């Protein structure tokens, strides 16, 4: 290869979706420059220029071209550095469609419902939301058993697309469990997912990339206090 390729990642340390991009880059052994954005303060020129539509992170900039949306970025990384590291998406079209389906389910239904229970002040809405989160974890348990076919990850022996998608939310989930004394990922209800969660967080490509649970607990505590005073 000629010149070193220029890869930049704009993100925030606490964002689970930014972690997705970091994990993917690590899986493919891609060197990159990371820029921490202050989303509560003022967004950088580079962010505003690269993502004028949504002004959100993560943004991957490869040789001056911006790629947006976390799962889009993961697919892009998989396709661009396809000769390096394991395949992130499965090779068979049906397995790929399953991975995309379940990751959309996590992003569009499961995680937003979980977050809503953090924000809502209604005890009723919170209870209902948590019930749905629990029910959907059972669905994900079934999906994991069927897709992993006895291996450690959704992706098989190695972390894949679905692992990155759901796994990126594990730190927030565990931080929430710690903060509230709740048991969201329950060994008695979803034993396979619990085992998978530990494998994922212990994996080399993940453990130094995702934020520490205690740091996120502190962040959540401060964030909650802030939103309570503003309400």
């Amino acid at each position, binding site marked *: 290869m000629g010149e070193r390729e220029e890869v930049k990642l704009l993100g925030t340390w606490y964002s689970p979706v930014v972690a997705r991009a970091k994990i993917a880059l690590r899986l493919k052994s891609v060197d990159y420059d990371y820029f921490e954005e202050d989303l509560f303060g003022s967004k950088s020129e580079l962010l505003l220029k690269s993502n004028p539509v949504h002004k959100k992170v993560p943004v991957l900039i490869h040789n001056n071209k911006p790629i*947006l949306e976390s799962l*889009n970025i993961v697919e*892009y990384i998989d*396709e661009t550095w396809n000769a390096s590291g394991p395949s992130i998406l499965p090779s068979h079209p*049906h397995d790929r469609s399953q991975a*995309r389906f379940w990751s959309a389910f996590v992003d569009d239904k499961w995680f937003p419902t979980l977050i809503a229970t953090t924000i809502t002040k209604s005890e009723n809405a919170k209870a209902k939301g948590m019930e749905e989160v629990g029910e959907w974890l059972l669905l994900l348990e079934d999906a994991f058993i069927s897709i992993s076919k006895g291996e450690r990850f959704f992706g098989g022996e190695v972390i894949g697309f679905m692992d990155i998608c759901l796994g990126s939310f594990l730190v927030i989930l565990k931080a929430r469990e710690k903060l509230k004394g709740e048991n969201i990922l329950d060994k008695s209800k979803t034993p396979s997912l619990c085992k998978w969660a530990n494998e994922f967080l212990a994996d080399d490509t993940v453990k130094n990339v995702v934020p520490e649970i205690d740091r996120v607990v502190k962040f959540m505590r401060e964030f909650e206090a802030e939103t309570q005073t503003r309400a």
Partner: protein
Amino acid sequence: MGLINGVNNDEYVRLLGAWPSPFVLRTRIALNLKRVPYEYLEEEDTLNSESVLNYNPVHKQIPILIHGNKPIRESLNIVMYVDETWLSGPPILPSDPFDRAVARFWDVYIDEHCFTSINGVAVAKDEEERKMAIAKLEQCMALLEETFQECSKGRGFFGGDNIGFIDIGFGSMLGPLKVLEKFSGVKFIHPENTPGLFNWADRFYAHEAVKPVMPDTEKLVEFARLKFNTSIFK
């Protein structure tokens, strides 16, 4: 292995859909583009249909593509699946990873913003709500006009010389847009404000993969009148 209509069970393709649905339309266009023979099954009442519940217990929605005995769900997912499975027809997604990422980004935008705005106009309870939804939709159109100019690079479609992922994603919304134009009196795709899109829409409707499956606008108007009992349709 059995045969259904002379086709090996494993290869048999069925599509569960509903004629007014723009999401179902996407999948039919994709299948047509690749010249995939398939059996189309109209779901009259999707929520109670047993086959829908069997194949899509999570969302209970159409479209559902059944290839052999494997169900594939979600319209954009299905379009990508069709593109990746039937390799002999024209490609739906571009080959360059960056162009693919751009195509995927815009189709997500179309679903999360445009379609939501279209719905917003249809279900608006009063004039104020409708005005806001209309403004949002006009913003979407302006952005898509820019995107069309950038992606088409002077050629006929977002995908270039032939229809591609963004054409299919957005083109499927043209029917609902025309219905809204009729009822709201607002022209969302306008020869002066969105000249690129205006001409593109005609080309899209005329495309051989689209023409046979695009629902008739008048029928969509009637459907909307019956389905949405909101102020705009009275």
